[in-house]
């Protein structure tokens, strides 16, 4: 099954890759993505391993609020919808989120933002590489190292051949498989478990998971919501799609994707709560999702779950590889190292960067550091601190470069202190709080008066 899925995605990558004749084609799918593909790619990318594997982990660790907390990440898509429209209006020829920060706030904020964004992209990639290995190990008994290597290899290959055309095309198919698969798994789980037994077991063995006043889970709700908003607002994964969609499509596509995504973490998270009543031992919390699905649904179910999880992983790894390589090629190589580089040179550089990112991710994934949550949420305060420089930067003329810079730096630092002092479930919230205070204070006390025309680089250069 693994080999079959791998071959299908790589062949589709080669097929769609034929369309990517120019750099605009390779990086932004010709800027011509419609509503169906736009919605599907946003939804499939957001149904990552972090949804199918971290939502169950949240439920196991933080109970019913854990599932709800995870589903609040949908607000990232809802709130990005109007931003996508504004981005397309302001920067019709833009390429990356880095372009926005550079044009809006200048070099110092741009460098800090690139550091945050590339680091986040990399931790997300690592968490998904790890998830691939964990998934194959839990469902098929394939050793972690082999499973992790296989999924990274497949995603690197088809992203390499097809660029964003392949990413969005495969995302469309993957989103359909994910949605059908989740409905099938959900119905099968409800059919095969005794809800009363699940409740009784939780009440006696894990009582705090049913407690609506479980402190850690109360803290996690807005922490996760703000982390989700930070992820979507800053990441080039979402900006590249906003640039790639036709004018007038982005807002509707992101809103629809949010609604499609919202119930997925609750469905995925619920099965984690059944582990105790079924007597299944969980050795690592990030394995609970696939392990439970495989156990409840038997061999045939395990195959369906395997396909769904594989699709959810692939749809995000490919997006991250493409978006992070765009950020490195466009913002670092083209803007800093080789201005005026030819399209051919950039295309070759993109290929090297995609392969390099794949190799680097593989090296870091190999020792399996921490659980998925601890790896991913380490980047939480960093991305949360970018929310306000971006949101105010898109709408307020008064948002200033110094405000943006200090919001990102102080939000990250103080958020990381919270990460170590209080727990990962507080870091994004603290980072976002510091960031909003600093951004708004600078905008009010030392306001800028930005000229929006500077955002359209093609016009500015003319």
């Amino acid at each position, binding site marked *: 099954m693994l080999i079959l899925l791998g071959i299908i995605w790589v062949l589709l990558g080669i097929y769609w890759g034929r369309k990517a004749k120019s750099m605009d084609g390779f990086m932004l799918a010709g800027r011509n993505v419609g509503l169906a593909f736009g919605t599907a790619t946003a939804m499939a990318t957001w149904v990552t391993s972090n949804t199918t594997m971290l939502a169950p982990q949240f439920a196991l660790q933080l109970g019913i609020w854990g599932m709800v907390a995870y589903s609040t990440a949908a607000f990232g898509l809802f709130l990005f919808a109007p931003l996508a429209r504004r981005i397309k209006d302001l920067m019709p020829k833009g390429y990356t989120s880095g372009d926005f920060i550079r044009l809006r706030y200048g070099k110092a904020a741009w460098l800090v933002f690139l550091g945050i964004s590339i680091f986040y992209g990399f931790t997300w990639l690592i968490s998904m590489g790890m998830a691939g290995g964990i998934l194959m190990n839990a469902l098929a008994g394939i050793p972690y190292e082999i499973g992790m290597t296989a999924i990274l290899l497949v995603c690197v290959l088809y992203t390499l051949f097809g660029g964003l055309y392949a990413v969005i095309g495969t995302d469309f198919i993957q989103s359909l498989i994910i949605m059908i698969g989740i409905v099938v798994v959900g119905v099968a789980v409800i059919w095969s478990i005794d809800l009363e037994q699940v409740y009784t077991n939780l009440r006696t063995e894990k009582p705090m998971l049913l407690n609506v006043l479980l402190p850690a889970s109360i*803290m996690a709700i807005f922490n996760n919501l703000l982390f989700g908003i930070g992820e979507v607002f800053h990441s080039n994964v979402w900006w590249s799609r906003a640039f790639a969609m036709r004018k007038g499509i982005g807002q509707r596509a992101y809103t629809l994707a949010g609604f499609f995504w919202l119930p997925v973490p609750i469905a995925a998270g619920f099965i984690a709560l059944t582990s105790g009543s079924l007597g299944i031992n969980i050795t690592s919390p990030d394995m609970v999702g696939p392990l439970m699905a495989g156990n409840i649904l038997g061999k045939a179910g395990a195959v369906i779950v395997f396909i769904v999880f594989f699709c959810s992983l692939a749809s995000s790894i490919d997006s991250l590889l493409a978006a992070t390589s765009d950020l490195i090629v466009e913002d670092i190589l083209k803007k800093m190292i080789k201005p005026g580089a030819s399209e051919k040179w950039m295309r070759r550089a993109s290929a090297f960067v995609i392969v390099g990112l794949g190799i680097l991710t593989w090296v870091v994934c190999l020792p399996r550091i921490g659980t998925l949550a601890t790896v991913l949420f380490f980047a939480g305060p960093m991305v949360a601190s970018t929310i306000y420089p971006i949101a105010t930067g898109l709408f307020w003329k008064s948002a200033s470069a110094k405000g943006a810079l200090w919001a990102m730096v102080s939000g990250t630092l103080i958020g990381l202190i919270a990460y170590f002092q209080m727990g990962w479930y507080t870091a994004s919230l603290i980072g976002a709080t510091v960031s909003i205070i600093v951004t708004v204070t600078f905008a009010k006390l030392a306001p800028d008066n930005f000229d929006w025309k500077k955002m359209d680089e093609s016009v500015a250069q003319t």
Partner: protein
Amino acid sequence: MNLRTTIASCLMVFCGYTSHAINLASPVFENAVEEQTNSGYIKLGWSLSADAVPMANAQFELQQADNKDFINPKVIYLGEDYATFLSGLPDGDLYHRVRSVSENEFSDWSPTVVVKVRHHSLELALTLFGLGALVFAFTVGIVIQGVRRVNA
């Protein structure tokens, strides 16, 4: 592991030992003697010493009690895994010990690990919840007000 177990069993038979002649190796927790959690979850892991000979069909029995003398303990895990993840724990001190079990034989109990569950205070949690709600409301406000201003 199975191959290792089979080879070990064959060697024992070859050497003339029976399973009753060999004491089961005691597992040892990989956790600190005293663990604290503010979130009500923790992973307990254990291992056998490097020179211990694994027994065929050996399992681990993990007990939990609310007192260090293990009066009225609960068996919270019996199986072949080397770890278990506990969650949803209420405030209090929970004592844990683990041993190897093979048919009618038992190893000695491991040294005890106490897990001190001290949830964050509800005041802190609700304060952060309120702060989060406020920050979220401002975020939504920035976006809605921005869109209105642009449309106007």
